[in-house]
């Protein structure tokens, strides 16, 4: 089976146990939401899969290969990462920023090939930022920047994408745009995992949810199963209102439980 699988990972950071034997399964072609309250270990789980934080235990498997056996550059071709609030430190043009996504496919001396340029243009189209190609990223609005960084992530052409809160601090239209784009990516066969705080989006867009609570997986499965009143009460301490207009399900937290 094609998937990115992290098995029983435990991580300790600064004396605190952040993850406790959490297993995370990201199948190819699915949009998986990683949800949980602040401090549940969502970002750490993503960083552990990417090898940014040392794990006490756990195994990582990509399709049939052990991730530990993959050299850094090979891993980079297969898993793309969109960092939380991803910064751009220099006033680069949009096109050049997106081109950085091709880094894993190039040696230090190569410049952009035709194949790379094609991938870059396609990603900018998908993320709706091709018209911004000559602008400097530092002059863009938050929503435009998010689309550029999404295009940068897509440009890697990886089989798996891990996006850490890609829609935080975006207006509703941009949130929808980014989620639609990630959903389309999953439909085309890419395994996409998004760290989400908005439970409504988690319910509507994701094929599968993983609910982390205090470093462990509290629930995993279809959005309807995972977002049960009991789980939400336990993990988030909230009660939610739900309704269904026949085509789409909605969910809004409206009260803290005591």
């Amino acid at each position, binding site marked *: 089976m094609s998937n990115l699988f992290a098995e029983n990972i435990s991580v300790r950071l600064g004396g605190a146990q952040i993850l406790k034997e959490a297993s995370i399964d990201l199948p190819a072609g699915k949009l998986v939401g990683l949800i949980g309250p602040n401090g549940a270990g969502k970002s750490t789980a993503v*960083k552990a899969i*990417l*090898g*940014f934080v040392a794990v006490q235990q756990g195994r990582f498997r990509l399709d049939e290969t052990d991730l530990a056996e993959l050299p*850094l*550059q*090979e*891993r*980079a*071709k297969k*898993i*793309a*990462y969109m*960092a939380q609030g*991803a*910064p*751009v*430190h*220099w*006033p*680069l*043009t949009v096109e*050049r*920023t997106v081109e*950085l*996504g091709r*880094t*894993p496919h*190039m*040696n*230090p*001396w190569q410049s952009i090939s035709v194949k790379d340029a094609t991938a870059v243009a396609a990603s900018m189209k998908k993320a709706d930022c091709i018209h911004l190609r000559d602008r*400097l990223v*530092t*002059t863009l609005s938050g929503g435009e920047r998010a689309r550029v960084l999404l295009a*940068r992530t897509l440009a*890697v052409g990886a089989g798996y994408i891990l996006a850490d809160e890609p829609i935080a601090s975006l207006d509703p239209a941009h949130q929808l745009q980014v989620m639609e784009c990630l959903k389309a990516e999953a439909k085309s066969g890419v395994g996409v995992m998004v760290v989400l705080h908005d439970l409504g989006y988690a319910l509507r867009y994701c094929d599968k949810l993983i609910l982390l609570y205090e470093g462990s997986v509290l629930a995993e499965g279809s959005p309807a199963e995972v977002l049960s009143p009991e789980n939400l009460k336990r993990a988030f301490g909230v009660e939610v209102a739900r309704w269904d207009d026949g085509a789409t399900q909605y969910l809004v937290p409206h009260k803290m439980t005591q």
Partner: protein
Amino acid sequence: MIAYLTRKPWALNVALVVALALAALLSGLFGQVTLSIGQFTDALFASGNDGMSIIVRELRLPRIILGMMAGATLGYTGAALQGLLRNPLADPGVIGVTASAGFGAVVAIYMGVAAVSAMAVPLFAMAFALMATFVLMMLASRDSSVLTLILAGIGISSLATAGVSLVMNFAASPMSLQDMVLWMLGSLENRTFDDLLLAGPFIVIGWILMIGTGQGLNALSLGADTAQSLGIDVKRLRWRIVLGTALSVGATVSVCGAVGFIGLVVPHFVRAFIGHEPGRLLLPSAIAGALLMTLADILTRLPIGHGQLRLGVVMAVIGAPMFIYIIFKTRESMR
């Protein structure tokens, strides 16, 4: 023309190399004895051993080569450190090696060994720079954060500066105090092939370590985590640049004294032409650094005031206004 250079990094490189070649030639012609081009090439290539050949081969040639190597080192490491630290205000001095080499030099002057051999000062400076490099590696390898690196650099720098003050405080005579101050102002005067032999190998090793880091620095524009996710070994990149800078700048300062501003200003100058992409800045910054150093060295030979103009002074006098101008010109896009 400017617009063309702005789009094409290689065109800028070609223009800079041409300017550098002209500047190097000028540097060969001017001095206490001014030569014509014919006299210069004769002295350089003919096998004669007259006074002119000695001036050109033993004095001007090492001075030109050393100046270009030093300028290239300071320009390149300035651009590399600004990229690594993602801070346009970084310069090669931040890692503390410059101040440490200065400490070594004043110790040599204080102890009087400078009077025994011309090589004593650069040898002491080099030894202190290498010690500082070693301490820096020890302090900053405990964790991988950029902050630790900067703090370690500031710590080493402060310690070395304190050492310099202490030595100056106890300086035996006004003469030795003057020697110390003049050394700190930097100069390429009377440098020989011995200086080149001492500093050259360390400078070249430093360059080799830093070659090919452009791709990693570009990726680092997106943050360390994202760079890592793009297949860049960020830790390795950091050590290559820090160790490369420490070795090449330590060696440079040992033979030229503390010449400031090149590492800070040159990358900004290059940005004005080809934009902010850190990897693209490296090579043109090296060439522009060599050019600026060569030009400044020519200016030190102008008969202004009494006594010799020092290289570091010329550089600061040109560098500071240039820096202010460039900052005002580019501040819009820096936001």
